[in-house]
């Protein structure tokens, strides 16, 4: 059981008022574990990218772990999610296997996508991920469609989609939210407002004061949540899940969060353009989602700091194992090139 949360305001924004719900130790420790798994995974990715161990881009989720983990902890294994280019956090939050995730980043045959997807597309369908889309906002309609399937079949699974503040300006978001609302679909729109799209502040591109305000345009609840606080994310999502599963339709959750790293590995030079102040980064780092959760767990007497550290160590070990696994996994054979275009072998002209 956790203490009642107190976070209400941050950098001038109204944020979700954490409820006094009871959260079991299991959930708290699961969240901590998954957040540590993401954190260590991302740190490792940065390290091995620096060493030239894989090619392409990679978009670290460090600083935003509470968003995906808090949300996924409120969902069932049989529920679906979809995500975006910043694609490592979502599958791990949903329970994905680190080794297969890392192998994918390395472009190896044992990766989730047999090496065909890479870092931007770390989707693990076996844990209910319907895609991590490199095209911004492109997976929002897809998640909406999974919810449509639930409704048409009278099944009780739900779906959720993670997208950025930048993505919220895409037409696909508008169309999906409207569709989901008029059809009362069991879908949760989770906007990870990490303040920027690459170098552009959402204040320069989003005409509403808050992205969650847009929910009014679709007659659905819009919830502004402290995205650094896993418990707040969890609680907000629990309510949205309940609404969805009971046939009341979609919810828009805006999680205020921050990306501690640069937009993408390899794009460090952009820091030079000073689209954000060092002091802003520092201020946000004070609210590291792992620190906040651990403090909460420890102060509420749910577990000791040592227990929390042990979870970190275990996650770290799993990440080390994942890298070893990835390094040792073979590259896909040439014959893989033509496979998976279609469900059966087909003469490709």
């Amino acid at each position, binding site marked *: 059981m956790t203490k009642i949360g107190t976070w209400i305001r941050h950098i001038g924004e109204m944020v979700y008022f954490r409820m006094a719900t009871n959260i079991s130790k299991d959930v708290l420790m699961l969240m901590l574990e998954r957040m540590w798994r993401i954190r260590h995974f991302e740190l490792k990715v940065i390290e091995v990218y620096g060493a030239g161990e894989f090619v392409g881009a990679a978009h670290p989720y460090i600083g935003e772990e509470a968003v995906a983990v808090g949300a996924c902890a409120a969902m069932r294994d049989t529920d679906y999610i979809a995500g975006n280019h910043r694609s490592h956090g979502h599958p791990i939050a949903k329970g994905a296997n680190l080794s297969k995730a890392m192998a994918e980043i390395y472009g190896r045959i044992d990766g989730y996508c047999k090496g065909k*997807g890479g870092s931007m597309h770390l989707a693990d369908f076996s844990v209910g991920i319907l895609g991590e889309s490199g095209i911004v906002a492109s997976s929002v309609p897809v998640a909406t469609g999974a919810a449509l*399937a639930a409704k*048409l079949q009278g099944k009780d699974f739900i779906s959720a989609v993670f997208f950025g503040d930048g993505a919220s300006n895409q037409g696909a978001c508008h169309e999906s939210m409207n569709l989901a609302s008029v059809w009362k679909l069991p879908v949760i729109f989770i906007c990870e407002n990490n303040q920027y799209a690459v170098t552009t502040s959402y204040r320069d591109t989003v005409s509403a004061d808050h992205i969650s305000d847009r929910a009014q345009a679709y007659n659905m609840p819009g919830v502004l949540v402290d995205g650094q606080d896993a418990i707040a994310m969890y609680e907000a999502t629990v309510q949205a899940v309940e609404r969805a599963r009971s046939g009341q339709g979609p919810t828009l959750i805006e999680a205020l969060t921050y990306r501690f790293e640069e937009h993408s590995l390899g794009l460090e030079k952009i820091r030079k353009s000073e689209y954000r102040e060092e002091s802003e980064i520092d201020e946000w780092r004070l609210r590291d989602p792992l620190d906040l959760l651990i403090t909460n767990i420890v102060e509420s007497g749910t577990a000791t700091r040592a227990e929390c550290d042990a979870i970190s160590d275990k996650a770290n070990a799993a990440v080390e194992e994942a890298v070893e696994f990835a390094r040792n996994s073979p590259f896909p054979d040439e014959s893989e090139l033509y496979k998976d275009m279609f469900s059966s072998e087909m003469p490709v002209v």
Partner: protein
Amino acid sequence: MAEKLFMQALSMGISEEMRADPRVFFMGEDVRASVYGAAAGLHDEFGDNRVLNTPLSEAGFFGAAVGAAAVGMRPIVETLTSFMWVGMDQLVSQAAKMRYMFGGQATLPVVYRAVMYYGGGSAAHHSDRSYPVFMNIGGLKIVVPGTPADAKGLMKTAIRDDDPVIMFEDGTLLGTRGEVPDDPDFTVPFGVANVLRPGTDVTLVAIAGSVPHAVAAAEVLAKEGVSVEVIDPRTLVPLDKETILNSVGKTGRLVVADPAAKVCSAASEIMSIVGEEAFWDLQAPMQKVASKQVHIPFSPALEPLVYPTRDSIVEVIKKTLD
């Protein structure tokens, strides 16, 4: 077996499959009222949960179909080719790429019915014939029925297929008639061309709305002693290359009739294949009878000049034989 309109054949294929498989559902704009015809009777028979009127949100519902398919449904989406541009990203980045990009994890049994309304004064915004675009993109099966029987048989195969399919339904064919099997087990396989008329002098490959013009042209030429082999590929992805190459092996001459705009068309592709793989069989230049490379003008004085016709096909075949 009875005579049916092409449009009715499409309806039959859809409703038979909806009867057979509860996972199949139908959605699009104004489909309950069946504004475009082929959804006639569906809402009455299958009700609200299987026949959905969508908002005007092509990106939204094209993509929703992908998501529904990914979790086990089998959606049929009705649209016009010209509206596909609005939801294009969902077709390309999701429907076409999802399976490959995720290493085969996604299975997407979704059918997009893209009606091509051209030839009747619909003007540039409503008259696209865009299958060559999707052939280039890859990852989508491309179906172009040329007869009522194929309309039904290919529709059924499309709905049963586990991959995303675009059915390009040619507006100039919707009112054509032909024998259509009643048998609910009747299907037409993908990747098998239909030799509509055997011949020995020229191979004439005809796509979609060009099929009746090609047959008519062959008839005209038969009277003049020219034997034309008319081949309807029926699906462009997969493409039955063998039948075309074998035919050219026999005739030594190739003409392709294609209602799409000529540049980077299906006709271009087929000619490039023959020029590469059956070059030594060719006894004359290959010829393309495709649409002029212009947008579709409204005026009835201009529009008919754009498309291949019986006469333009006859003329080009004669050139080939010179």
